[in-house]
């Protein structure tokens, strides 16, 4: 069964703290994504990666950075957390062009981050 695992379901951090959100997929997918989900705004793309060490900005990259040192792992980093980054963070992966499939996104369970 395909699996995308996010390291923490719930986190509470203080303003200014550095926050790491980890995501691991076991499907050998090339593409990995970080979205944040807020009521009324749907899912907004923060960053994505189409290969190891490759990354591209999504629609709302400000205040975030990412790291993809290994194919199966994609990390989201908040260098200095702020209260407006309180949100649900969803990681997803999909097969690349060479991986076949429909290109569907497989999502993790989500990480709910609260910044106080």
């Amino acid at each position, binding site marked *: 069964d395909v699996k995308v695992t996010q390291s923490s379901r719930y986190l509470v951090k203080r303003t200014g703290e550095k926050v790491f959100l980890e995501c691991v997929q076991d499907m050998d997918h090339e593409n990995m994504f970080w979205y944040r989900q807020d009521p009324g705004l749907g*899912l907004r*793309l923060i960053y994505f990666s189409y290969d190891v060490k490759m990354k*591209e900005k999504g629609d709302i990259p400000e205040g975030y950075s990412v790291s993809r040192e290994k194919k199966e792992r994609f990390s989201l980093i908040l260098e200095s957390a702020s209260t407006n980054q309180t949100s649900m963070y969803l990681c997803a992966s999909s097969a690349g062009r060479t991986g076949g499939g429909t290109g569907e*996104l497989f999502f993790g369970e989500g990480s709910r981050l609260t910044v106080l």
Partner: protein
Amino acid sequence: GQQVMQIPQYQHVQEGEDFTTYCNSSTTLSNIQWYKQRPGGHPVFLIQLVKSGEVKKQKRLTFQFGEAKKNSSLHITATQTTDVGTYFCAGKRSGTYKYIFGTGTRLKVLA
């Protein structure tokens, strides 16, 4: 930048009534996907549409992709309580890996 809007934002229906959500993109899409997110869950893939004017069915669900590949709809016939959740469309432009999600339609079915 590319935007994908969905309407309505919320819909309450009586069980057995039909339901439709509409998705509109500001740019032409190469394909569009639909996802369902149950309350407390994560989005789960339902279907992908690729061709202009394409129509696909999954039991009581009918998906359409517009002729201009800028809009799409999901229609549920005779809703059931198991249909409760938020439905998202996600559009992709050619030459990019990015999927831009719509704002979602939250469906509540009253028994």
